[in-house]
């Protein structure tokens, strides 16, 4: 259970939340998007719910809809005309490198392709705030690195604020402007936060060899290890 988490995501900022398992990172995201009510306290959003999107760890595409229809669904549910939604869907599938795969059902796509469809689905809606719950954990290394590059450039260009939950410290640093560290549960809380002094625009793969990367990594890693070792 998470207790007393107070954190802010500024406009256009990429913020990550790292912490040991069971610290309630996922619950926090679910509370922000309204899938779960906090037991106490409030979630303050300056953006309306329709401007918030979430990407889960599993892609959870509707298996009976094609890639194109899955993407279009996110648009028609918000009132867009069907025909226009299909055009937009094709556009976003193209942007995510899935040209020509619109007629495929999720079952006939690879894990990386499904993840890209899910991304197209949330990005097509033009969210102001994007929540991601360990979205890349299930992908293998190269597919993962390439999707992360694409996500970074798309949110940077779209000036989308992001709140990413991850176990992967390197991923968090290479993508974020700001990182919050959660303490170990029960009664987890935000124990520390860090600014990431890497320049933008930024390629998250190359960011890992930037001179400013190692000192931040070292600092957060020490604090994180301390949290993991701490007896509850």
């Amino acid at each position: 259970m998470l207790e007393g988490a107070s954190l802010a995501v500024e406009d256009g900022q990429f913020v990550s939340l790292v912490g040991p398992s069971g610290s309630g990172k996922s619950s926090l995201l679910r509370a922000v998007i309204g899938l779960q009510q906090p037991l106490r306290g409030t979630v303050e959003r300056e953006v309306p719910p329709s401007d918030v999107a979430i990407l889960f760890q599993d892609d959870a595409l509707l298996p009976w809809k094609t890639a194109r229809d899955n993407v279009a669904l996110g648009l028609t549910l918000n009132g867009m005309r069907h025909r226009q939604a299909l055009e937009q869907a094709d556009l976003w599938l193209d942007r995510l490198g899935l040209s020509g795969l619109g007629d495929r059902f999720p079952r006939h796509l690879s894990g990386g392709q499904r993840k890209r469809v899910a991304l197209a689905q949330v990005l097509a809606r033009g969210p102001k705030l994007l929540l991601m719950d360990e979205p890349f954990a299930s992908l293998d290394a190269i597919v993962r690195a390439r999707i992360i590059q694409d996500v970074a450039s798309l949110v940077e260009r779209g000036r989308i604020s992001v709140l990413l939950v991850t176990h992967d410290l390197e991923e968090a640093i290479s993508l974020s402007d700001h990182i919050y560290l959660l303490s170990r549960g029960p009664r987890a809380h935000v124990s520390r936060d860090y600014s990431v002094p890497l320049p933008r625009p930024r390629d998250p793969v190359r960011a890992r060899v930037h001179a400013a990367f190692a000192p931040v990594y070292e600092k957060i890693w020490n604090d994180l290890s301390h949290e993991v070792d701490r007896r509850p």
Partner: protein
Amino acid sequence: MSPRYVWARQLTAFAVLLAIWDTAGRAGLLNPMYLPSPSQIGAALVDLFGSGRIWTHLEATFTAALVGLALGIGAGILLGVLGALVPLIAELLAPVMTLLNAIPRVILAPLFVIWLGIGIASKVALAFILVAVLIFFTVFSGIRQVDRRLVERVVTLGGGRWALVRHVYLPSVAAWVMGNLKVAVGFAFTGAVVGEFVAASRGLGYLLSFAQSTYNSALMLALVLLIMVVVLAIFAIAGRLEKYLLRWN
């Protein structure tokens, strides 16, 4: 042995068996009263179609089975959905359905004849009850297993209750029903034929009962063959439909 020619080997074995059976029959080794030869069965089939008297029976059985199938699927879905969504209905329905599921439902045939007469209604009722219970359980347990992640996905995309029904629940229900369609078709024909066998004036089941009472084994085997072909043909159609509607799977 090459797995590609399984069908060829099966066909050959079947032809050999038929040849032995027919030769034994011609040689007088088999009593046609118990086991008529394949050529006698074939002659009975030719007679059924040649005289044209089979059509009215086929029509009766098909009508009863298909009407029972359609009504049974409709009622099964409706009750399954209601049961899954309204706890009170689930409470009241569950014991009834469990009982109906526990007994061989064809034993209700004589009761339906008393209630509904020897006409088509009693056959429809039997096919209906066989199918409805099957579909009810399929849908009832299916809805409770709808993937939560899909529900959350549609909700977070801004979908309301109606969007959930349309994009998540209905397609899930359709998938489970289609997955059981072949079994349901088999049940529907079982219901129709057994109902006719108990008491009727038309239908394949009625012809079976007639063949039995006149000790006409050739006619009986011809009818068994015919029912097999009919159900296999319907299976093929159902299979096609299933393959098309579940093409995403």
